[in-house]
């Protein structure tokens, strides 16, 4: 199998009794007893404070981490059984500050996974052009620049284009807009929402910003101290009775500016 089947309803992610622990002095569980099903084509936002385990949950999906207990299934196959290189090449990944390769041009960065997959040259070039346009960057102007010659927002756009390059059915995003100024952030959030709706990808998006979660999510999953404590469609999330939901809602009430 070289690719996840985009059209299949089997194409979802499932956590079954997942715990993750690091052997060390504290031996604390970073993720504890998580059961979660992520349906195909939805944008699921993992919301929580720093250290609540959201990033770990994300890394359990593409096998960067393997659960110490339970199983993570991607397309009904445990990450323990997946060839991890194959799995990761079919899952897009975007992080804060984008993690672009500074010694690659924008075009080379976007072309990374297709190049690893040995696509023919013309097909790669066409795909790079298409993607740069998709994220609102004129290929003529930007393709040959290096990441250091871009603004933070532009780098993040390239990061999204790179993640989408091989048309993966799943996209993992770890606070991708967290380091941007509020104006650029709002701009990228708007564009990303419309992009997400058009692309029909299964997206798992990590943030600590309730405003961002409400804006982007079809479903919000709230994490607190290593556990999933609440989940609801975005429209109903604020009505949940959980005290942590109230804490987050209080952060909204503070009004404009930086998230709490």
């Amino acid at each position, binding site marked *: 199998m070289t690719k996840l089947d985009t059209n299949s309803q089997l194409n979802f992610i499932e956590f079954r009794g997942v715990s993750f622990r690091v052997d060390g002095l504290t031996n604390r569980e970073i993720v504890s007893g998580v059961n979660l099903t992520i349906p195909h084509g939805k944008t699921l936002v993992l919301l929580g404070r720093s250290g609540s385990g959201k990033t770990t949950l994300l890394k359990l999906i593409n096998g*960067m981490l393997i659960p110490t207990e339970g199983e993570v299934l991607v397309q009904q196959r445990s990450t323990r059984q997946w060839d991890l290189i194959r799995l990761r090449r079919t899952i897009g990944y975007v992080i804060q500050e984008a*993690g672009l390769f500074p010694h690659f041009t924008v075009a080379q960065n976007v072309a990374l996974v297709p190049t690893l997959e040995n696509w023919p040259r013309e097909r790669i070039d066409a795909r790079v052009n298409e993607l740069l346009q998709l994220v609102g960057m004129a290929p003529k102007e930007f393709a040959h620049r290096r990441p250091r010659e871009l603004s933070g927002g532009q780098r993040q756009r390239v990061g999204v284009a790179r993640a989408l390059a091989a048309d993966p059915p799943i996209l*993992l995003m770890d606070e991708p807009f967290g380091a941007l100024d509020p104006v650029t952030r709002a701009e990228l959030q708007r564009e990303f929402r419309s992009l997400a709706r058009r692309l029909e990808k299964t997206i798992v998006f990590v943030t600590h910003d309730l405003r961002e979660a409400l804006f982007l999510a079809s479903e919000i999953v709230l994490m607190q101290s290593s556990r999933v404590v609440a989940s609801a469609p975005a429209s109903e999330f604020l009505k949940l009775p959980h005290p942590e939901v109230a804490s987050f809602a209080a952060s909204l009430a503070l009004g404009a500016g930086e998230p709490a």
Partner: protein
Amino acid sequence: MTAWHFFVQHRAEILSATLDHMGLVLIAMLIAIAISVPLGMFIVYHKSLRTLALGTASILQTIPSLALFGFLIPIPFIGGIGKRTAIVALVLYALLPILRNTYVGLTTIDPAILESAEAMGMTRRQIMFRVRFPLALSVILAGIRTATILTIGVATIAAAIGAGGLGSFIFRGVALVNDALLLAGAIPAALLAILADFLLGRLERRLKVT
């Protein structure tokens, strides 16, 4: 007789000793690079060998150079009098700066870059050769530069075990208390070191990725 007259009179000899010296340094450096750079890559993923390799290289560096030449003479195959022994000693000295810089360069890459490389499905080998190595290149080169300058200096001592080079002037100058002879060895050696520093420094800056 002034040093200048001596230089002019013996320019052919000085030139040939300089070329000898450069030959010694070049061969030693090529061997040291061929050992240290792959070894540095290897110990990134092999913890158990890491301490051993870096420790051994550090210890080698602490042996006084004249003593190291002396120790090598009685060893079969690599020992004896002449160029071969000298090159072995020079290689042993050059290992540490290159090995350490290779290891440090390969392991001080921005974690976000390595994380995305892994998450994109690059294999360990691809991450090594397409990400770590190109990004570490200027640091590795800085190590090569340090080692080269060091080796140009240490190679003058190689004359003590009959390896020739600019050291032969220096040793004769010391024995005969002749400043002109001494300078005929010391000045070209210093110029070589400055030149190597300059050229490798330029290359290093060109390879630096920001």
